[in-house]
């Protein structure tokens, strides 16, 4: 299912931050993880992902480093403290939003905002 751009714009950054909370990742890894873990719902192409990563970096929510030890140089991204705080805030807001949508019958009943229900 393709998510509308406006919704994606809101969901993309916390999704990326959440993925990075598990440890640093490079661009392709993030694309793969997003697609796999969300059953393709939040799959995004490079044209969306990299500008988003650059934005997050400009806001000091993520930091990047170049690793030249592999077969090719790769840029790895990791969460900053600010990014962690931002993720915590976003998580709370998404849960509140999910609960609200659930009470309206938009989100499925029985599911919980904290994870699979």
């Amino acid at each position: 299912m393709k998510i509308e751009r406006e919704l994606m714009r809101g969901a993309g950054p916390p999704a990326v931050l959440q993925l990075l909370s598990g440890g640093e990742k490079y661009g392709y890894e993030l694309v793969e993880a997003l697609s796999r873990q969300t059953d393709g719902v939040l799959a995004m192409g490079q044209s969306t992902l990299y500008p988003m990563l650059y934005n997050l970096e400009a806001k000091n929510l993520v930091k990047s480093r170049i690793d030249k030890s592999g077969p090719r140089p790769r840029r790895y991204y990791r969460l900053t403290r600010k990014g962690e705080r931002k993720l915590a805030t976003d998580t709370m807001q998404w849960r509140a939003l999910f609960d609200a949508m659930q009470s309206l019958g938009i989100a499925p009943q029985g599911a919980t905002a904290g994870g699979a229900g």
Partner: protein
Amino acid sequence: MTLTAKSWWHRVRHTRPRDILHGRINGQLDWRQAVAGADLPVAVADTISLVVRKTRLWKREQLDVTLELIAHFQDGLETGLSGEELLASFGDTANAARLIRRSKKRGRPFLWQAWWWASRSMAALFAVYGIVVLLLAFDRPRISTDYLAILNKSSISMPEDQRGWPYYQQALAWLKANTEASPRRPNVSAVTVEDWLTGPTDGETLLLDNYPKLDTAQRKVVDAWLNERAEFLVLLRKAARQPRLGLELGNYSPQYRRLFGMREFDADVAEKKSAVESSIYFVLLPHIQAMRGMARVLKADLQRSAFQGNGTAALADLRALTGMARHGGQAPWLVCGLVKCGLLHSAMEGLETVLAAHAEIWSTRELAQAAHLLAAVSLDVRDYVQGEKTSFFDLVQRLYSDDGRGDGYLTAAGLRRLDREVLPVLRAGGNWQANHFSNWQYLAAAPATYFVGASRRELLAKHAEMWARMEAEAERPLWDPLPTEETAAGQYERMSPLARLRYGMLDRSLPAYRAVRMTFEKAKGLREGALLGIALQLYRREHGKWPESLNQLVPLSLPSLPIDRINGGPLRYRIVDGQPVIYSLGVDGKDDGGVLPDYCMGDPWRYRLLWPPAHEVAEEEKGDWVIWSTGSANSETSSSGT
């Protein structure tokens, strides 16, 4: 990544400055080389090149993006996906380039961000400034109301035989034709009205103004001078009898212009006349000054008539002086009101001469006529408010644009006029030197006035507010002034420097209404004194003595007694050397025995009405304001107060 052979200059351009400084011309920033060396499918390499090129980022940033995209596609290819599959999930290249550019720029250093925003802001400001310049370049003040025509409407419609000006003009023309040289400048032919009216001199002393104090020989000189001008005096009396002056202001006839040495008026000159020059704000009134000179001659003749016992001529001169005061004050500007007060003062000085020692030349009926002549001259400063306001409106319409809804702004053409024509006049005391910039410079400066200065509507609103305050202040008696903060002056004091700049036009264009009102108060006070003087004379004729109190004049001679204009209390009355003295306690509020302060030099017209009233007055201000006296105020006191 393989660095293929490139020119030395190409490599320099794609090398970090730090490496150049170390002599390493490595061309490492050449992202195209990075793409070429990545061994990617052609379609993928082309897509990366297209995206990176479109980002138009710095070389270092472009290289970063290139390397990241290369790594991304290589990772994808390693998972077994084809180039086409990877490209299908890439997204729109133009959008990618746009988003990458935007996000990368957000990550640039603070100094660059500051510079970027500052430069954009400056560019925006210049753009707005440029738009305003264009707006001001094409907009022009629009003169929609001919205030001068409105002003002159009643004068033009008046029948010739009811106009006083033709006779005044005849009188002055006669004087010009019959005066050969100026007493002030004996070696120069008489060229100005002032010269013709200077009168005889005794060395350096002008004799015309001091007739009662002249010795016999001096009086003979003045008498002869006046006798030679008998025809001139007849014409003046005839002129002053007319109900209105009837002079079309501003659009002066060639005869008028020649009389006062003004520039010849012809079609060519009329076309060259600027918009400001032709505004009623700058209408020249040389005849007003001439009237002051003519009044000096009339007053001297009145005084001579008193000394010669010619009551008829004296009364005719008094009638002429009061008539001239009415004429002089018929134009709607405050300066004309001031002239009116001055001319009336001349009439009252002549009356004082008659009543001081020659009262017998007038019958009781003639004394009553004299009183009526003086009382008939209106002394209301409010008569001149609308003229002043109208003048300002006329000036504004010649400087500001008009959007048809009462708003507008100072245009470039208006700014030019303001600098070259208006401010040199308004700031005459401050020696304003017109800048005489080029039109382009005025155009460039005009937006500054657009942003800083008040709009037409704001300016007129502030003008109305200041006038309302000045009028409210003038409505109050001298002893009960408005609180300072409610006055126009107080309001101006509280304005911030920026607000003063914003309403700078008002700074000099608002008249000194308070000072003019004080002159009117003085004229009214002195006229009340003169009317009391006539009433005292009538009482004395009937009873053979001066009254014990002014109250005895009411109601037979006067309907009521005037009050002390300074403190609102009763006027004081004394007999000094057998002559009555009527006075106000003055600004110090103390009875000094009917003695003027020294600075007045015996002339109550010089008395300074302090505003607002001071609690403590300076030593030199101490004394009384004598509003009627026909004797020496310094002689010993011989009678009581009110």
